[in-house]
Structures are given as C-alpha cells and as structure tokens.
C-alpha cells in the first residue's frame, strides 16, 4: 500500500547494544551473529520495539500527533535486518487514528495504529504479589518449554531504565510519559528474555494508555492463552500507565542433527575408508551430518566453515573424541574468494566433494523476482561450486566425485523461493554439462526433500523428512561411485 514517507533510519550494531541495555532484551537474535544465523531471521535483527519507539518519537517530533494518544496496536510482520534502511510511512490520518507502516523497500516490516482521544481509567490485571520479579539485567534469556508457559506470570520494574529512555526518546516521552515509553520498551524484554524468552518471536501488541494510579512503577504480565498448533502465546500486561495484550511465538530451537554415536550404530566402520571428503559448508546442518556419516564409516573429513568457527570446532571435537584424531579437520572457506588460495593445502588428497555452502534460503522479498537475490544465489550455488570443482579437478591426484545438493523446491517452485530454485536449477544444468565433458570431476545431483534444519523450521508445522534417513543413502551412493569409475 502506498504511503507518505515521513522519515528513515538504518539501525547499526551500536544501536542494538544501546537498546539491549535500555530494554533489558539481550536475546542473541539481536546481538550475536552466530546465534542469529541459526534462527529464521538468518542474521542479527533490530529489536522490533526499538523500531516502534523510534517511529513514535519521530511521529511526535514531526507534529503528526494532534491529540492525546490513547492506544497503540502493533504487528511485527517481517524481521528488520541490522544495516538495512527502514522507512516510516504514513498510510492514513484522521482525528481518531493514525495508521503507519515501517517498510524495508516495498516490504512491510511493522504496522502501527495509533488511536487518538481521551484516556480512560482502568484497574489492570491482577497478578499475585508472590509472582517473580524480573530485573532489567536478567541474563541470559530464559528457555521455557511450550507447556511451561501456560501459567507464567510476573512483574518487571520500570524505574531503573526510565531516565535513559527519556533521553533516547524525548518526543515520545513528552507525549505519553517516559514511564509509558519505558513500559513499551520492557515488552521487548518480556518477550525476548522471559516469555517465550530465548527462542521467541514477537508477534505484536495492543495496549491502551490509561490513567492508573496503581502499579506506576512496574508492569505485571500473565499468560492469558496459548496455542500449541502455532506455538503461540498471548499475555495480558498492565501497569506503568498502560494495559493490553502481547502476542509472541516460541520458535523452534536450533535443530540438532543425529549424533556421531547414533550414526555409528548404523554405518559400518570401514564403509568409507580410503576416501577423503571435502565438505564445503560442513559446520552445521546437512553438511555437518554428512561429515559425521563419513567419519563414522572410516573416511577422512575436511570440513569448511564461513562464519561458524565454533560450530566447526564442536563438530571436530565430537568426531575426534570417537574416532582417530587425524580423521577430521576444519578450515575457513569463503565461496566469494578463489578456491585456489583456500584449498591449496588439501587439494591432493580430496576424493569426494560435498557442496553444502548456503545462505539463508527463505528470504523476505518485496517482489516476485529480486535480481540481487538471484545473483547472490548464483554466486553461492553455481559459481562457488564450479570454482571449487575446477580447482580440485585440475590439481587433485585422482578422480573426484562431487555431490551437488539440489532441492525438490526446483519441482514445486514455491513463489517466494523463485531465485533459489532458479539458481539450483542452473547448478543442475552445470553438473550435467560437466559430466558430458568427461573430465576428472564427476558430479552427482540429488534433489533433496524438505529436511528439518535451522533453515526449514517454520511457525506452521510442515512435514519434513528425517535428515539421516535421507542423507545416508545419498552419501553411500556418492562414496561408492568413485570405485566404479
């Protein structure tokens, strides 16, 4: 929907730290790139409440609020990546309400409805006095199981951060009171640190700004409803001059693949001996699973990581603790740089290549085809693979079997994944052409079904395959193909 642009802002890493301190929301999705890449966001994202308070501050500063604000209704629709420009747009404005959007290009990230009029008095919700107090410096984020959230209640002190809040949001504070701005800021902590906590997604909130003499210096909260189908939780909140409800979701935690011990029970100890597999993108997900399968079968594994150094270290530790110490090694690898300089030390020994390099495949898009996204995927899934194969084919000592993981999405072609599917299809065609030339590199393409990984965990449960059941026959096929050539 078109709207009138009022202001824009790009949130930076420093802003993340500042708002984490102001709100008490230190959830890793806002601060830790490694943890954030294992979430649906795929990268560090702005605190949604920070964006809202900036918008409210701007709205008042620009004189767009002619009367007293009586309520706020907010929906968080898409993640706001750090470093991306966010635009505040006015959709409509009359004497009863102001409707606004926060947009990333053409994509709506947040919607905000500000209702105007006369504030009411209200009693608020009744949370037991014995309910736990959650201080602003509570760390780390709490991890509740879904079933544990149904009866949660507690309260948060608003006195501590109020002065800093007033300094950062002076116009909003003048319009609705710094204690109410503080209360809104603390909703970020409520969702990000307490309930659902560590693996949370903030859906939205609707609050009335009320004149309430009781509980001015704290917010009380109580879970009012849960919905297991969507892992959704609703909370009532009141205090500090507001009352209303908050909607949030419990995200799936990072997906753990099968352990090496489990795999060793079903893979023969000598199935893959005399082979050395280079696994690009092997620090997590299907790459890590493949590394474990090959190591379990007595093969040597060289896995690469782009940013997940600690993930790679953990995986190596797991493999080395149960196999020979020289079975596994890790090296950094950036598909945007030439393979030659990065693989020089390992080129001679590699017999198999598994190319699991990937970025976040499920992207927020503003149109049916985004050229820059297609370019990014082609670099990742076509050029990167070809570069790797060429180098190993040219400098290796023997034949090389390269596994190219394509996807069933190529057949179903989901509309929001067009660029990904097109790039994977291009990769498949490249593999066919490489095989046609009959060089040292033989490629095997596998269209993998939807498997449960960090990338495919969604709010609405979707049927996914067991990664181990799918990948074990794939690896057996790839590993055995070398001996038949």
């Amino acid at each position, binding site marked *: *929907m078109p709207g009138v642009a009022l202001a824009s802002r790009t949130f930076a890493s420093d802003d993340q730290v500042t708002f984490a301190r102001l709100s008490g929301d230190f959830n890793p999705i806002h601060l830790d790139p490694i943890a954030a890449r294992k979430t649906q966001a795929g990268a560090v994202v702005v605190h949604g409440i920070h964006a809202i308070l900036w918008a409210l501050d701007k709205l008042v500063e620009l004189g767009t609020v002619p009367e007293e604000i009586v309520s706020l209704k907010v*929906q*968080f*629709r*898409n993640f706001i990546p750090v470093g991306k420009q966010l635009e505040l747009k006015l*959709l409509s404005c009359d004497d009863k309400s102001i*409707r606004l*959007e926060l947009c990333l290009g053409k994509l*709506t990230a947040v*919607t905000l*409805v500000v209702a105007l009029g006369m504030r009411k008095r209200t009693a608020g919700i009744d949370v037991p006095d014995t309910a736990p107090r959650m201080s602003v410096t509570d760390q780390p984020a709490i991890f509740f199981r879904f079933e544990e959230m149904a009866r949660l209640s507690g309260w948060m002190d608003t006195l501590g951060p109020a002065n800093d809040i007033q300094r950062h949001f002076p116009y909003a504070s003048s319009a609705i009171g710094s204690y109410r701005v503080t209360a809104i800021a603390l909703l970020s902590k409520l969702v990000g640190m307490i309930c659902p906590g560590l693996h949370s997604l903030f*859906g939205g909130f609707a609050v009335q700004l009320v004149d309430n003499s009781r509980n001015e210096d704290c917010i009380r909260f109580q879970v009012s409803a849960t*919905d297991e*189908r*969507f892992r*959704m939780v609703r909370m009532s909140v009141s205090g500090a001059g507001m009352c209303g409800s908050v*909607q949030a979701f419990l995200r799936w935690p990072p997906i753990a693949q099968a352990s090496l011990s489990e795999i060793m029970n079903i893979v023969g100890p000598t199935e893959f001996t005399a082979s050395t597999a280079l696994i690009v993108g092997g620090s997590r997900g299907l790459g890590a699973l493949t590394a474990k399968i090959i190591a379990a079968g007595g093969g040597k594994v060289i896995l690469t990581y782009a940013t997940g150094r600690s993930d790679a270290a953990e995986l190596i530790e797991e493999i080395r603790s149960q196999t020979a110490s020289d079975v596994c090694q890790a090296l950094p690898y950036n598909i945007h740089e030439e393979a030659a300089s990065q693989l020089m030390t390992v080129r001679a020994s590699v017999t198999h290549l598994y190319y699991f390099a990937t970025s976040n495949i499920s992207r927020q898009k503003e149109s049916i085809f985004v050229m820059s996204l297609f370019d990014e995927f082609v670099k990742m899934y076509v050029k990167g693979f070809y570069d790797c194969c060429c180098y190993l084919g040219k400098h290796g000592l023997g034949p090389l079997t390269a596994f190219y993981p394509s996807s069933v999405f190529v057949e179903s072609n989901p*509309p*929001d994944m067009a660029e990904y599917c097109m790039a994977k299809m291009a990769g498949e065609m490249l593999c066919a052409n490489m095989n046609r030339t009959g060089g040292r590199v033989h490629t095997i393409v596998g269209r993998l079904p939807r498997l449960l990984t960090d990338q495919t965990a*969604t*709010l*609405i*449960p*979707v049927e996914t395959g067991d990664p181990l059941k799918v990948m074990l026959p794939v690896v057996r096929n790839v590993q055995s193909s070398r001996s038949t050539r």
Partner: protein
Amino acid sequence: MTDQEVLDSFTRILRDLLLDDSIVLLMETRRQDVPNWDSFNYINFMVAVEIEFGVKFKVADIESFENVGAIIAETQALVR
C-alpha cells in the same frame, strides 16, 4: 450463513490485519495473491477466523488450504 457472508467477514478480517482497505477476497484467492499475506499473517488470520466463527481448524488443514474457498468450506463444515 452464506458463503458470500463468510467471504465478506474474511475480507474484513484480512483488511484489518493488513491495514489495507483495497483487499477484495474471492473464493479462488490464494495467499500469494495478496501482498503481505505471509505465514505470520496467515496464522493471525486463521486465529481471527476461529474467534469470529467459534471454530478450531486442524493444523494439517491450515497448512493445506489451497485458497480462500477451501477455508470457507471448512469453516462452514465446522460451524454446522
């Protein structure tokens, strides 16, 4: 309640959710036909429909509804 009346309710619910008064739902409308009707808003839409009509959908159905007409058909079946 006729299918058209349910459709009108659905249109109103979605307009409120997406803050877009230009939305006009048809029986054959699919989620991808409506800008911003993403998975998150789909959940909110389904929950709002459940509250309005006093029904509860199965998660497998929610995942597999092909278009608005399918949601209306299931809503009508649950209401009866």
